[in-house]
């Protein structure tokens, strides 16, 4: 069970119903989710409710998660790959407060629903798991078109040439596609989505996955989905391959490894240690911990 004493509002929990939202709101959310699954990549508008955490902190993901959760679910919340970063902790505390019966976990393999900000877990997800993304900007076309009505028309017609022009301009200026995260990705051959600010490293995991990916944008009031076994192709040129972060040490030519667990197959956080040296560590805390535990057990 969750600790319940970490929220200032904790003592008021009893005032609120299961999963916070009123039942009509949850029903509407579920309808929107179904629609999003039926039209992969299409941004389904919904009447996003105000959550007791601020816009931008994951209110869209929270609403999707709250609409999904039932008392037998097991939920995991991560932010930047970590279960115990402040925002993840805060959201998990909110779920524990408002969803009695739902259990929490930090283990990727144990969760039925995982809410995430900025990462996809390293461990491949199964077909009985749902990954819910928190989305700040649902529309990849904002890069090239400020007007929302125009953008909707462009999506309908799959009119995405201007996104490619952006890539072209990037190539001209830098000889590289410089989009680092929120990499525009084409779903099922039609709609292009903003896969939320995940790094390029995580984008290939969207393609033909076993699990369901749901994206909730609270402030912008959109829900969209990449269903299981669906094509998800990052947009690029035929002769400019899409690449992911490689964490190559330019001095040695070798990949950096996690300083905790030694992993060389994970997305790494880079930061200076006390002595000012650059060190690397798994961004996915659960992955790192489980590797450490395996290593301890093996010894």
């Amino acid at each position, binding site marked *: 069970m969750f600790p319940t004493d970490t929220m200032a509002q904790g003592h008021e929990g009893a005032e609120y119903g299961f999963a916070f939202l009123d039942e009509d709101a949850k029903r509407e959310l579920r309808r929107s989710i179904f629609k999003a699954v039926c039209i992969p990549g299409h941004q389904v508008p919904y009447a996003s409710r105000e959550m007791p955490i601020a816009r931008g902190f994951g209110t869209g993901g929270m609403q999707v998660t709250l609409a999904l959760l039932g008392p037998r679910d097991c939920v995991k919340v991560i932010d*930047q790959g970590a279960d115990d970063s402040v925002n993840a902790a805060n959201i998990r505390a909110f779920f524990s407060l408002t969803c009695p019966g739902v259990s929490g976990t930090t283990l990727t393999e144990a969760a039925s629903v995982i809410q995430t900000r900025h990462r996809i877990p390293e461990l491949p997800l199964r077909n009985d798991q749902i990954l819910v993304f928190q989305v700040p900007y649902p529309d990849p076309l904002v890069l090239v078109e400020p007007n929302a009505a125009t953008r909707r028309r462009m999506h309908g017609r799959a009119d995405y040439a201007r996104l490619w022009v952006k890539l072209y301009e990037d190539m001209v200026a830098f*000889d590289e596609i410089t989009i680092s995260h929120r990499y525009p990705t084409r779903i099922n051959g039609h709609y292009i989505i903003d896969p939320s600010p995940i*790094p390029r490293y995580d984008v290939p995991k969207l393609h033909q996955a076993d699990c369901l990916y749901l994206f909730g944008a609270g*402030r912008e009031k959109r829900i969209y989905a990449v269903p299981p076994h669906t094509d998800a192709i990052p947009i690029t040129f035929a002769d400019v391959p899409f690449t992911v972060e490689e964490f190559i040490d330019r001095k040695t030519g070798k990949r950096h490894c996690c300083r905790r667990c030694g992993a060389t197959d994970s997305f790494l956080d880079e930061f200076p240690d006390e002595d000012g040296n650059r060190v690397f560590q798994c961004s996915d805390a659960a992955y790192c911990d489980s590797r450490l535990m395996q290593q301890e057990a093996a010894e």
Partner: protein
Amino acid sequence: MAYVAIRGGEEAIAGSARIMDALRTMGAGDPIELDQIERQMPLLHTKVMSEGGLYHPRLAALALKQSLGDSLEAAFFLRAYRSTKPRLGETAPHDTRGMRVTRRVSAAFKDIPGGQMLGATPDYLHRLFRFELMDEGAETFDEITRDWFGNRPEGTRPTTFPKVLDTLRDEGLLPPLAEDDTPPFDITRTPLIFPVPRSAQLATMARGETGGLLALAYSNMRGYGDVHPTVGELRVGYLPVTVPHPVTGKPVEIGEVQVTECEIVAMFEKTDEGAPVFTLGYGACFGHNEVKAIAMAVLDRAISVAAQNGRINNPSEDPEFVLLHVDGIESMGFCTHYKMPHYVTFQADMDRLRAARGKAEEPSHVSN
């Protein structure tokens, strides 16, 4: 180690909550009463209800108390509370002619039917400190109250008034009110998909943040736009709220809400029927907030003009620009979110920068 300190966020949040609570209570003397907030800071209090989109005086006072007086945060409490409540019914449309008026002015006419009524306004008060307020007692409050009730002007002033603009309508200078039975757009149940009807425009602004509305309306007034408003009528008062009786269906009055309403008259325009007429801008919100009502009326007009001309010349005329940026809860939230960790995206940024720099540094690199 700094990085590890971020892990363990749960304890950090708990600690933060304790400090906030201490900040609210330490050395503050007697706890502030909810009534005191409601009565002694009515303008702040009703602003919170207006921006929170929920007319609940008691919870609005609690919100202000719990948020340490931050009006945006307080409005946020009301909004979040709304999300948990089912909708039990809908009120019928209300005619503000039935408003129990406490203040009404017109800048268009010196004499208006029923007369101007200055009411409570700081407009003509000098913003000079009354230092004696630093040291008021309960007895001072009683004295002022007794004096007000004891020396109220005699006579039977009516409490409801005709609308000033009806005179203009009678003369044909304003187009007649169009009968429209279309149910208003419900912004709490339907997201804004542009283009949106005017009712969505008005509803969004009615719970918009005062400062945001003011800034955009001011840009129009200063020359990034050309509404050139005249305040036809501004009224503040209490509007009876009726709902259909659950059994009989007959309208039943269940209370009243304080409302500020502003109708501005703007430059005239040609009509299909020939003779030119004035145009209108409408603003209304919960509570006593004249700046918000006027700003809203100006923006309502600005957006309508642009829609009519099919051309947007200024930000204040763009419905997307105005309506997507005036909500205080959303803008405040998104601004706040930048304080959250962005390690992963920043790591990805560094990767791209290094890649681009690597290309730039390669001596063999030839720009094509």
